[in-house]
């Protein structure tokens, strides 16, 4: 073995991935020299907007895709040269479904277990155990096609755990789930993170999710690492408070002009998507700033809704390092709701 097996669950070194353009479309640089390490037994959050390179990173680390250049080891094995060894110790929950909808939950898990080298008795016992753990025991004989989105997702995670992997990859595990199912999934992930031997790599574009679940966070944007640290460290790196105003049918230029003269604001961002918008800024003195912002908007005749001041959230971290609010509201309407929810 090469000397790179330094005890880290994952070592990614200068990963690049270029998808060749077709026709007149240019090449896409999905990853542009991404490096990071993940300590064993932790929950590692890969955080970034759509298209930042999170899924590409996951696909490379799970051997689904190969990097254009750079190297990566998972549990000490090289993803390219020792891909079979990597596959033996990882579990992967992709954004899609990993189970056959025509089969029952139990059949899916049993087949997964047999494929991974268990005999029929072991596979059956393991399937039953996982179905219990994930609250699917009663539904175990139902076809997966009858499952709700949340149940399906839990089954996907259960299927990825059948063979007791050392590294579990969760690619946006709660995207598309309703709030209740999301809360359940968060509880499951937290339970898993308590298992010492398991390292979890979680990609998400939900700030709240990253904040609640991850021990360590890597912010990626444009295929590059922006900043890495614990959620606490990242928030502490920002001084002062943040101010957020939700806007109604805003004209960003007018909003910007209206608050331009309010003293003490920094990192000002105004974004509009459809009929909603948000103004976000940082300030040393929230109480003074909130009044001044409201007054300025009133004077300019700008309609606004909720106004909130808070300690820095990961949204603010993102805003600070990447420069626009998190998520792409035009693609994912839910992220707007999460943004205001986190600020309130």
């Amino acid at each position, binding site marked *: *073995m090469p000397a790179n*097996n330094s005890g880290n669950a994952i070592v990614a070194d200068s990963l690049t991935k270029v998808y060749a353009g077709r026709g007149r479309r240019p090449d896409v640089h999905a990853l542009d020299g991404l490096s990071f390490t993940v300590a064993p037994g932790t929950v590692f959050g890969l955080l970034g907007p759509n298209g930042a390179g999170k899924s590409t990173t996951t*696909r490379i680390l*799970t*051997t*689904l*895709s*190969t990097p254009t250049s750079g190297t990566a080891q998972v*549990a*000490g*094995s090289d993803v390219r040269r*020792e891909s*079979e*060894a990597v*596959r*033996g*110790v*990882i579990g*992967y929950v*992709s*954004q*899609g*479904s*990993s*189970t*056959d*909808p*025509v*089969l029952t939950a139990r*059949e899916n898990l049993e*087949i997964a277990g*047999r*494929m*991974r*080298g*268990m005999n029929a008795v072991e596979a059956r016992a393991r399937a039953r155990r996982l179905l219990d753990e994930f609250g699917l025991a009663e539904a175990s004989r139902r*076809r997966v096609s009858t499952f709700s989105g949340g149940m399906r997702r839990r089954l996907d995670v259960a*299927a990825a755990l059948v*063979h007791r992997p050392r590294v579990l990859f969760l690619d946006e595990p709660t995207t598309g789930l309703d709030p209740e199912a999301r809360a359940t999934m968060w509880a499951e992930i937290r339970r898993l993170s308590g298992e010492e031997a398991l390292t979890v790599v979680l990609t998400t574009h939900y700030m709240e999710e990253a904040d609640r679940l991850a021990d360590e966070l890597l912010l990626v944007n444009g295929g590059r690492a922006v900043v890495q640290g614990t959620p606490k460290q990242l928030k502490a790196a920002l001084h002062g408070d943040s101010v957020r105003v939700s806007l109604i049918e805003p004209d960003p230029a007018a909003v910007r002009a209206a608050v331009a003269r309010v003293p003490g604001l920094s990192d000002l961002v105004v974004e509009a998507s459809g009929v909603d918008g948000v103004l976000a800024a940082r300030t040393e003195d929230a109480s003074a700033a909130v009044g001044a912002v409201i007054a300025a908007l009133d004077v300019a005749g700008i309609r606004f809704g909720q106004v909130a001041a808070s300690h820095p959230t990961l949204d603010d971290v993102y805003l600070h390092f990447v420069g626009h609010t998190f998520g792409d509201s035009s693609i994912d309407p839910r992220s707007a709701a999460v943004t205001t929810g986190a600020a309130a």
Partner: protein
Amino acid sequence: MSTIALPGTLTSVPRSGWFTQFGQVLRRWLTSSIRQVWGPAMSLIQPIIWILLFGQVFASLGVLPQFGGDGYIDYLVPGILMMTVLYSGAWAGTGYIDDINSGVMDQYLTSPISRSAIISGQLAQQLIISLAQSLVVLGIGWLGGARYPGGIGGMLVALGVASLLAAIFCCASSAVALITRSQIALISLSQLIVLPATFLSTAMMPADLMPEWVQNVARWNPMTWAVELGRGGLSGTYPESGWWQAAGLTLLAVLGFVWAVRSIRAYQRSV
């Protein structure tokens, strides 16, 4: 596949053998097709119509000496048999496209599962389905008035040849599915191939009754090989070039299988 050397530092990760993997892939697809049996069942409507319709409409052709004097229905059944497995096989790739779209394929590819076991397991399911369909077609033919003087042995030959033909088209369909990843591309491509393959063969008409250029095409059409071997089995009189035709079909099936396995590897490289 079980002899792959794992790097020394890894504690032994249990791995299933090739046959277990194959068996589990087969189990998954078979369970799935038993629960959706209407699919294979629906694909039998067409041969029923062919046999009843063509058998009636062209019954008078049977008196022509080119049909061997046993009546048109006897001539037609082996053609319909091969046509049925051809149509059915050409759809085999749709399962992979569903898997690619749902994410199941990603799950396979990130597991230590042999690529050839994935292809073989699904192929085995397809062959089981085509065998069942073949038996039904032979039964319908018998009800329609066809007789099989070749006996049980001859029927087994016909079923074996039908399986070979099914294997060729299942593999080709799988490969095309994994390369194009598009249901529409797969369907249009198989439409483009399946119908000419049927009519430019001796499935419906003996070569002597067809224009010369069609005869030339038909001679090299694997569909013709399969139909004539199947007809030989059912009638008990094998064509002169039977061994060559059987060898040709076997070779194509092997090439098709290799192509399908290579396509699944190519699919992984391209994502």
